[in-house]
């Protein structure tokens, strides 16, 4: 028996009941489409976190005030004022694993120009702040060391803020804006950075010398965050170690449990987020996989019913020369065709759903070739696996018993 003939026989048999064939495939279609879409969504969120990492600088290591335990009472993180400029200076002098360091202070408020105003945040740093946070200057200049020491009323401005408060055609550089009633002269415009993966607009900000933000806007003497750049990504762990040791010495802490600060790295943060998104992806994939399995059982069910229903057809085929193996192959090819065609439609639908989710909901989606290939192979395997038993049953029938079957 040649396979071209068997394929035609199987195809004709399926075409005799198109609607039923379609319903049978529906399970597989939905299963495959959801596997692909779910994995695409999972992968998309993972990739956007990874992109975030490179855009924020994978060498970034930072210190935040940490929860202090004093007599078992947890103190809030944000209220902590444990980070001081002297800590930063000590780190700058002692750590050999960092290439740059900057304090960070920030506050939010209304920025005003003319009669336009806009709510935004202002970040204070030193001259290394931009390079540590991987910001660029599109035009204008960075503030100078001297402007830092003199608490100069100057700032850099993000693209979003520019578009919100400056009329078209006005060059912001040289203009004076007001933030919380303090006049600030715009000396540079930040390059566009877009949203980060948490949907935060990274162009909606001002950057000023930290002294200006600290003294003039907040009137505080501590700093909120210390940002550093490790010399290389490979040395982030060493940098973390340095910072912890130095900070403990500075704050006279003997046991790590007593830390009043937390050292974190961008890489570590990303690792945490990616592992969460990996768990999510696995979970979504597993649920989708179950629906694929249910689709496969649907095929087995239909094939099984169809063997019983078509017993006389099987008998007839045997009487005109069909061998057991021909019958077996026919039913196997039928079930494989159902699952493979269903799989292909499912892949198409999966792409469509991913694209729709991507554009309508603004979620990042990444379709992996592996998930497409894998779900296709799984489909073919399902067809063969779930088709085998009914097909075997059909092929073992006795011609005369099959013909006489009522």
């Amino acid at each position: 028996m040649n396979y071209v003939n068997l394929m035609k026989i199987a195809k004709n048999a399926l075409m005799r009941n198109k609607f039923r064939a379609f319903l049978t495939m529906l399970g597989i279609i939905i299963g495959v489409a959801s596997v692909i879409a779910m994995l695409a969504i999972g992968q998309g969120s993972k990739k956007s976190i990874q992109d975030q990492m490179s855009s924020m600088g994978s060498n970034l290591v930072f210190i935040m005030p940490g929860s202090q335990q004093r007599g078992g009472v947890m103190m809030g993180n944000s209220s902590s004022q444990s980070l001081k400029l002297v800590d930063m200076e000590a780190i700058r002098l002692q750590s050999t694993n960092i290439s740059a360091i900057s304090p960070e202070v920030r506050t939010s408020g209304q920025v005003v120009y003319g009669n336009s105003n806009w709510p935004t945040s202002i970040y204070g740093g030193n001259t290394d702040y931009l390079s540590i946070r991987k910001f660029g200057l599109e035009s204008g200049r960075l503030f100078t060391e001297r402007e830092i020491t003199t608490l100069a009323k100057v700032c850099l401005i993000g693209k979003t803020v520019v578009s919100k408060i400056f009329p078209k055609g006005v060059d912001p550089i040289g203009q004076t804006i007001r933030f919380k009633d303090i006049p600030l002269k715009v000396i540079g415009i930040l390059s566009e950075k877009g949203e980060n993966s948490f949907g935060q607009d990274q162009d909606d900000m001002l950057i000023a010398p930290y002294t200006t933000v600290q003294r003039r806007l907040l009137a505080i003497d501590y700093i909120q965050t210390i940002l550093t750049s490790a010399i290389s990504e490979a040395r982030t762990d060493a940098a973390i170690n340095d910072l912890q040791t130095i900070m403990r010495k500075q704050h006279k802490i003997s046991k790590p449990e007593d830390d009043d600060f937390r050292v974190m790295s961008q890489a570590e943060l990303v690792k945490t987020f990616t592992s969460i998104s990996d768990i999510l992806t696995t979970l979504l994939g597993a649920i989708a996989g179950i629906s694929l399995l249910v689709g496969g059982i649907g095929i087995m069910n239909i094939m099984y019913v169809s063997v019983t229903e078509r017993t006389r057809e099987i008998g007839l085929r045997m009487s005109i020369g069909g061998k057991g193996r021909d019958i077996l192959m026919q039913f196997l090819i039928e079930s494989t065709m159902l699952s493979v065609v269903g799989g292909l439609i499912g892949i198409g639908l999966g792409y469509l759903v991913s694209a729709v989710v991507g554009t309508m909901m603004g979620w990042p989606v990444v379709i992996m070739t592996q998930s497409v290939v894998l779900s296709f192979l799984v489909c073919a395997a399902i067809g063969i696996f779930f088709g085998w038993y009914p097909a075997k049953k059909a092929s073992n029938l006795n011609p005369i018993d099959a013909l006489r079957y009522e």
Partner: protein
Amino acid sequence: MANNIIEVSNLKKYFQVGDLTVQALKGVNLAIRSGEFVAIMGTSGSGKSTMLNILGCLDIPTAGDYKLDGVSVSGLNRNQLAELRNAKLGFVFQSYNLLSRTSALENVELPLYYNSSVKAKERKERAMAALEAVGLTDRIHHMPNQLSGGQQQRVAIARSLVNDPVVILADEATGNLDTRTSYEIMELFQRLNEDHGKTIVFVTHEPDIARLTSRNIIFRDGWVVKEQMTGEKVSAAEMLKSLPVGDHEV
């Protein structure tokens, strides 16, 4: 005799139903020559179908020997029997056994799908020729449910012809048809026998139908009790003319 297509000697077929052994065939001897049109007659339960199924290699005898076209069938396995059916046998059933939702042409092509030496083009040509032989050239794309019983049986006969078998086996092939249509089908069988030289074994319990063949083998209780030549064979075409007009099936 050299040109015996079918030779059966001391053939027995027992069925086991629970504790009971049903002796459907108790020791049958018969021979059918090439080009014969033979009717197997007998009352219901006499073993006709059992005999025909064994002749058609659909069932295996309990004992005895069966030679088809000079080859002893006893030693053959399932696959060899299937090949034999495909190459040498044609079946016509009482209930037509056409594939539903499948055109007349495709139904007739079916046996050739199981013969890998026949290519698509030849398959279609042969199916068309078989449909022409049964007078259904204008119905090739009709589905079984768009055909009358007589036409469906013609499709089934075309299907039994398409592989050019050495013998056509028919079990009560007119059993579901009215008198006139039965004669029309018998006329077709007579034509196939006389003009195309087909060997036909035709099971029936109706003496009127059996008269239209050249020899009758009568079964009773699993034995062949009588064999007789019909003498002057009656022409189905003549019988048709003598039928009152008006009950013609469309």
